[in-house]
């Protein structure tokens, strides 16, 4: 495979190195000439010392025959433009972007970036799994990214305790499908009664989150006070 990596920071550098070790053909674009020389000294002449956002230099780097373009600079706007140029102007089949602001994820997906990697989101996910919070926990994003698998830990004060999924007012396009109780996962039937300490696994659209939060977590202030 021919992979064009744009951005020669730490991520781009190690990515290029790993790809070469796996036997792929790699070109790395880095606009800072000092950094570009440094990388050339370390891993050889695969570096194009130019701005990967410029159409002219993308063409010179062979963007039109790339199988994958990975935009891993530190700036979201640059990564977006690199992927869009690769996709729409050079017909690259697969584009991958690093996204720093999690808020930009939906925009990037919408605008045709094939895959997103958000370090912020990933670290946030790890932190949320370690700290008990009265919030919903994002377990995974599915498909186009519009759907998410979400876990809700039912703690005292949750309006869902003592009720069944049938009795809850679920937002459209959102379903509760399993419950983890005492470390054992079971499918959630419409008449299963939910208990304190249950972990309810739901799947739904991102927009449903607020409603889901109200149904399963309730008002955290009230919990703290109670």
């Amino acid at each position, binding site marked *: 495979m021919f992979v064009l990596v744009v951005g020669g920071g730490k991520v781009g550098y190690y990515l290029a190195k790993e790809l070469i070790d796996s036997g792929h053909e790699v070109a790395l674009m880095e606009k800072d000439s000092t950094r570009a020389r440094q990388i050339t000294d370390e891993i050889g002449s695969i570096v194009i010392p130019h701005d990967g*956002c*410029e*159409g*002219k230099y993308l063409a010179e780097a062979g963007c039109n025959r790339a199988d994958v373009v990975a935009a891993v600079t530190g*700036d*979201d*706007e*640059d990564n*977006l*433009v690199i992927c*869009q*140029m690769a996709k*729409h*102007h050079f017909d690259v089949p697969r584009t991958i972007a690093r996204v720093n*602001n999690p*808020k*930009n994820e*939906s*925009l990037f997906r*919408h*605008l*045709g970036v094939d895959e997103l990697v958000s370090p912020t989101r990933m670290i946030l996910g790890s932190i949320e799994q370690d700290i008990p919070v009265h919030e919903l926990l994002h377990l995974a994003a599915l498909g186009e990214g519009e759907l998410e698998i979400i876990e809700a830990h039912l703690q005292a004060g949750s309006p869902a305790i003592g009720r069944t999924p049938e009795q809850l007012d679920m937002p459209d396009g959102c379903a509760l499908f399993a419950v983890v109780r005492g470390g054992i996962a079971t499918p959630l039937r419409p008449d299963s009664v939910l208990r304190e300490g249950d972990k309810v696994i739901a799947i739904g659209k991102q927009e449903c989150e607020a409603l889901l939060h109200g149904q399963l977590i309730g008002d955290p202030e009230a919990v703290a006070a109670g």
Partner: protein
Amino acid sequence: MKIVIVGCGRVGASTAELWDAAGHEVIVLDIVTRAFERLPSTFGGNAIRGDGTDEDVLRRAGAEGADVLVALTEGDNRNVMSAQLAVEQLRIPRVIAKINDPVRAAAYSELGIATLCRTGLMVDAMNAHLGVAPSGLPSILAATGHHPSGPHADHGGTPQGNPEETAAPRAAVEA
């Protein structure tokens, strides 16, 4: 009209001043407060320090419900991103982005963003002055094709829309 200007450089400040004086509701953003020194003391619009490529910042600045957004910062990509946020997330009907790289300017006009390319504008202004033939570089490009989900998007169609359908009605620049 309610107009959002991203980037308060010479062009941004001049247009902000003119459009404000003409009675429009103007919001101008820049990441550097000092940039607002270019605005006259009579400026009656809102000057807000913030990053115009951040959706939250745009909303907080009051960009929702704007009729026009023009992205005039010194960074092509920042302008592209700001313009696309305006189209996609804020549903602003008319959007113009300054894109100095001719390749990117042409590419984004095909993606439904009206673009201004200073490179082409200046080269051809000089050519015209000297009586030399035009360069063929992009200068002022109306949005051809459609943005993936712009107001005129053909949902479920190809991302670039129908190439034969040119001059989308929301083309913001008709020179």
